């Protein structure tokens, strides 16, 4: 499983959910850098999103050894993944994003979920981890 950082960004560029997974055995000491790079890539995503009608934006940005893929939902909520070094094929990333999209729609439909709030549900977290194991 490659080292990667997955984040869901809502309105006003607020992160709603973050998940970091590292390759086995390595200590993670670059979390802040990854967050910074992901935040900077939001500008690139914003430029691309008005030119295209697609949901999946493939690879949007590169920095040193990091590459970033993005996916947009109907409500312009962004799913971003930052890969450190090797990354999986576009198809498996797209399938991962599609499954996360379904989970996101279900969370959004909950009237008790405050709009643009962080997602705290433990079952959401466990489902995301299952998807990561399956597709990434």
């Amino acid at each position, binding site marked *: 499983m490659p080292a990667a950082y997955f984040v869901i960004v809502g309105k006003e560029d607020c992160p709603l959910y973050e998940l970091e997974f590292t390759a086995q055995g390595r200590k993670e000491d670059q979390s802040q850098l990854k967050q910074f790079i992901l935040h900077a890539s939001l500008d690139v995503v914003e430029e691309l999103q008005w030119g295209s009608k697609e949901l999946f934006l493939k690879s949007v940005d590169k920095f040193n050894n990091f590459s970033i893929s993005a996916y947009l939902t109907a409500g312009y909520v962004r799913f971003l993944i930052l890969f450190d070094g090797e990354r999986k094929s576009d198809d498996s990333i797209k399938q991962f994003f599609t499954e996360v999209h379904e989970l996101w729609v279900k969370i959004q439909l909950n009237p008790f979920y405050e709009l643009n709030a962080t997602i705290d549900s433990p*079952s959401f977290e466990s489902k995301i981890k299952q998807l990561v194991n399956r597709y990434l």
Partner: protein
Amino acid sequence: MRAQFRVSNKLLPSITTLDATNNTTSSIVAPSSPGKQPLVDILDVPIKSKPKEVSMSAFSFLFSGIVQYYQERLTHGADLEQKLSDLGYSVGFRINEIILYREKNPQRKNRVIPMLQFISNTVWTMLFGKNASSLEQSTDSINRYMIYENQPIECGFISIPKNLSGLQCSYFTAGIIKGILTASEFPADVKVFPSQNKESTVFIVDFDYDVIDREELWK
């Protein structure tokens, strides 16, 4: 012909089984009694297929309860419209995602006209079972569009008393439109007026000028 107002009833399991933090309470088992189902995690409920329709009478009953609830607590008529609009806003914000998700080939809408066509056709069909009567652009101002609706269904059973003759209960639908537009990054203000010939209702959508500037930029 009885019109049907469709509302996704997939919300119902989540209202009864989740607390405010989205935690599933499946570890707490309700005392077993005949007919009681185990608590369900909303993340397991399938949403891809179209849900069952909700009957017109059930929705009208609920809507009349909502209107009466607000009316008892408000003194000024215009506030009722604002409250209905706010209620519709939170509905619209949420259904925006699921309507697009259910399409065969989901694509985002990134221009004003396709977005409004999406609302007057797809959203209207999902809510009311038919398309809106028409969609027009105003010749007076560049940011104004109108959606005409000849028979607003949600107000079918509401009779307006004489002392509140200007009241428009279609503000609930206007709130839904506003929620969908705001969620899709087209901030707009939506108002309801009876149309010129008093027969139909018109939803006047005024986009923020940022949206218009963006349209110009990407033409």
